[in-house]
Each structure stands twice: as C-alpha cells, then as structure tokens.
C-alpha cells in the first residue's frame, strides 16, 4: 500500500518537474525576445526616418534631426579592443602565475583579491578614474607618447586626459579580474597528466605551460576573453566618466570620444521624440554587437572542442 502511494507521488513529481523546468527556461527566452522586440518597436520611427544613413552618419544633431551611429560604434569597438590589447597579456600572465607558479598560500590570497576587484561597482571605478587615472593619463602617459611617438596618428593632438586612452585603460582594469579569474579556472581544470606528460618528455616549466597547458585550455581561454570583451562593450558608467563625451571619429587615442553605452547614459534623460528613438536604435545596435560577439565566441569554442574530440 505504502509503496504504491509513494510511487504515485513520485510519478506526480515526474509530471510536474519537467514542466516546471520548461517554464523556467521559457521565461529566460521570453525576456530576451521581449527586449529585442521592445527595442525594435521603440527604435522603429528612427529606423524609418534615418534608414541606412543612421549606420554611416557621423553626427548626432537633435536640432537638425540628423542622427548617425558611426562615432559611437567606432568608439565602442576602439575602446573595447584597446582594452583587450591591454588586458589579455596581463590577465593571461596573472592566470598562469596563479595556477602554475605562485606558492599555494599566495594563490588563495591573490585569487580572493582579484575576485574583490571584479566586484567593485563600476561607478566607483569611474570615480577613481576621474580623480586618479585621468590626470596620470594626461601627464605623463599622453604627453610622453605625444613627444616621443607623436609621428604616429594614434598619438597626435593635445593630451586631454579624458578620451579613448583613459576609457580603454579603465575598461582594461575592469575586465582584467574577469579574464584572470575565468582563465585561472580554465587552467586549473587542465589535467595534471597533461603537465606530467610534457615534463616527462624533457620540457622546462615554460615549455610545459606553453605547449601543454595553454593549448589544452585554449577554447576556455578564448571564452574567458570573449566574456571580458562582452563586458567591455556594454560597460557604461565608468567609461562615461572618463571618455570625455566627444562625438567624433579620429585615430588619435588622446581625443575625447564616446561609446554606445556612454552616449545612452549621458543623453537618455534629456532626449525625447526622434532623438530618443535614435538612442534606442543605438541600443539595438549595441545589443546586436554583443550578441554577435557571444555567437562568434560560441562558434570558436565549439570548433576547438570538436577538434579536441573525446579527450579528457
């Protein structure tokens, strides 16, 4: 009797639980689709009005009702890619140090500090950027680069402090802890047998890391970098505070610029009508960019892991 009763209960669980999990996953999908639809509806008047010229336009002029997204998209990509250029070597070095080189007592302390760094609210990082980073970027960094490498188009113009350079550095500071901590997890998951295999062939520690550990973890490391990139692309507050809010396309890293996210943050409250619709179209573009980055990252990881086959 009792046995059959519990079995009935279990069966009930079997019926309800799959449906419950299905609903949970549908909610996630629904939110995503909803955001996309709302963005599209809100942006529609701007899409209708500006059309293709929105994507290539270089000015943002509510008076003339002329809106172009290119400087914001350019600024987003430039600052994020520059941030990656700074962040990748540092984070990889730190991740390798934490898994392969540091003594164990230091590993846990350093990991803890890095995790705290990742948890600092971006507005606080932005304040630090405003008061500490920007003056340093102005002098010595930009003035030095201007004097010594001023022939290059990247280092021309007056050293403002506020601009792409400061934005890229602040973004790098914000994504280094993320890439480091994910990268450390990836490297930690590389089996000891892989390390020993390389060592037993007569590899030095560096050869072991570069030829066994890093290749084994490469798909995970790319994933970590892509997540860092996605964070950099969407980062708003800290960038808004240091990028200087100039709507222009220029090779000079000293120049004030803007990103999609910082444009949204600084203009949103004072916009209405077509300029608001245009801002939302801008948001839609950012959404598509980050989505593409994630899809590309997935494809890369999938390609690399399918090559890896059934290895453990």
């Amino acid at each position, binding site marked *: 009797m009792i046995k059959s009763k519990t079995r009935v209960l279990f069966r009930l669980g079997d019926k309800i639980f799959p449906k419950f999990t299905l609903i949970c996953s549908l909610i996630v999908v629904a939110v995503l689709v909803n955001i996309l639809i709302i963005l599209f509806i809100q942006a529609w008047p701007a899409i209708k009005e500006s059309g293709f010229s929105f994507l290539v336009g270089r000015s943002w002029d509510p008076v003339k009702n002329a809106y172009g997204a290119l400087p914001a998209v350019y600024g987003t990509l430039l600052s994020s890619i520059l941030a990656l250029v700074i962040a990748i070597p540092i984070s990889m070095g730190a991740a390798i140090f934490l898994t392969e080189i540091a003594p164990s007592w230091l590993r846990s302390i350093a990991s803890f500090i890095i995790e705290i760094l990742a948890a600092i609210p971006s507005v606080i990082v932005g304040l630090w950027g405003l008061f500490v980073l920007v003056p340093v970027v102005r002098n010595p960094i930009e003035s030095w680069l201007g004097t010594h490498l001023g022939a290059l188009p990247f280092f021309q113009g007056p050293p403002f402090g506020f601009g792409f350079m400061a934005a890229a550095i602040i973004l790098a500071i914000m994504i280094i802890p993320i890439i480091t901590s994910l990268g450390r997890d990836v490297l930690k998951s590389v089996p000891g047998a892989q390390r*020993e295999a*390389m*060592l037993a062939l007569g590899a030095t520690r560096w050869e072991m890391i570069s030829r066994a550990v890093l290749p084994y973890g490469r798909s995970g490391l790319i994933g970590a970098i892509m997540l860092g990139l996605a964070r950099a692309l969407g980062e708003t507050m800290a960038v808004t505070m240091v990028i200087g809010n100039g709507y222009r396309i220029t090779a000079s890293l000293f120049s004030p610029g803007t990103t999609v996210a910082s444009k949204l943050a600084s203009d949103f409250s004072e916009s209405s009508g077509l300029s608001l619709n245009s801002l939302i179209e801008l948001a839609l573009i950012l959404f598509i960019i980050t989505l593409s980055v994630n899809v590309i990252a997935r494809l890369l990881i999938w390609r690399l892991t399918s*090559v890896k086959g*059934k*290895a453990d």
Partner: protein
Amino acid sequence: MDTTKQTETTGSRSFSGNKGYILKAENLRAFYGAFLAVKDVNLDIKPKSITAIIGPSGCGKSTLIRCFNRMHEVTHGARISGKVLLDGEDIYTPGIDPVSIRTRIGMVFQKPNPFPTMSVLENVVAGRRLTSVLSKRTEMEEIAEKFLRQAALWDEVKDKLKQSGASLSGGQQQRLCIARALAVEPEVILMDEPCSALDPIATLKIEDLMRGLAKDYTIVIVTHNMQQAGRVSDMTAFMMMGDDRAGGLIEFGRTDQIFTNPKDKRTEDYITGRFG
C-alpha cells in the same frame, strides 16, 4: 628492517663492472613532506631488460619509479634522499638539470595522456621538438613513422596522422604515448602501470611491444598485475608497505626465481595470492 636481506638478494644479482647496470638506486628514500613513502631501496637495473616492480596498492611502486626520472619532485613538497645512478652518475647531483635527465629516462603513464590539441604526428614528435628544430614536414613524418613503427602503431594510424591524438582508441593512445617517449630516444623507459586503463587485448599488444622494445631499451614497469610481471619481465622487484606505512623493497631477483622460488615468506604469500 630488512636491509641485510635486500643487500643479500640484490647482491647475488649484482653484475660485474660498470656495464652491469644502467640504473641503480642506492639507499633511496622518498618523502612527501614529512611522510616517508619509500625507504632504503637498493636496486640494480640491467640494460636492455625489463624489470617489473610489483606489490600491493600503496606500497610505493609508483613513487619509486617516479624517483628514477626526477618526476617525484614535481609533486609539491616531495623530495628524496639517497642516490639514483644512471650510467654511474648520480642524477640527483646538485647542479644536474632534471629536464636533461628526463630526456634520457622517458616515462609512460597509467592513463594514456596524448596531447588532444595535437595531431597523431605532432604527438609523436612533441618531445623531440623540445630539443631539436623540426621545420620540415618530411622530417617530422620520417621521425613519426620510425617511432610509430617501433611502437607497433604505424599500420593502424598511417592514414590518421592528421587526426587528433585523442581520437584514437585507449590502447592506440597508450602506444602513441610510447612512441612519443621513444622519439626522444631515451636510454631507459619507465612505465607506470601502462595497461591498467586498457582492455585485455590492448594490454597484450602493449606487452608484445614491450618484449620487442627490450632489445634496444631498458624498461622498468610498475604493475599491480602479477601475471603481467610474469609474462613480460626478466627481473622482478617485490615491494611492500611496512608497519610504519613506508614502502620497502622486500625481494629482487630473476622473475622465474621470484615466481617459483621466492626467498622471502612475504613474497611467497603475495605471489600465491594470500594477500594484496
């Protein structure tokens, strides 16, 4: 505790002159931190022969073999005392680079561990590439073919050289790892339970391969499988954990002698299956 007996048994097998052994352990002790894992091992290993190290789990067989190519110290806090002589030279002499020792004494591990991001071909030359620049593809292919043939794997993988090393079956992966170790051209190959993750057919293939390799190489194999030791080895060392939890060498001798006429009661008990 049995130092005298060991000396006696190993002594009776000592070979005359410097050529008598290629690898020799002298009063070798292995530690993990303060824990003594292996104590006072004295062992001579004849060139171009197969020496099996047998004994119950936890007796320090793997620890001992890892001392022979300085892989023991890779573990955090691990160290040794005593000597390990390779061609009469102590590999633990201060100033000797463990990296150079490992190119002379290769190792094959318990679980096949090919490099999954490398092709079969790249796996074979992975160690070789550490010491010499192999720029030409034909050069790499020549070396790969030579050692894949030595590892009795060539016929099975000659059409799969570009596939991932991890796409092969378990037995093939292990022979690939053997080919990879051979390609460095070591004098001694250490095998740490190389068949424990393999099925019986793959195991027999590896055993055949080992018999063939013993013509040119010195092989030391750790195995928990007594039959395997009986099938493949010329010499057998029996290890056991003492009351102090440290593993020691109980008896060392010709394999037929150890299996048919062991001198020590504990060896006999183990061989006849009374424990372990």
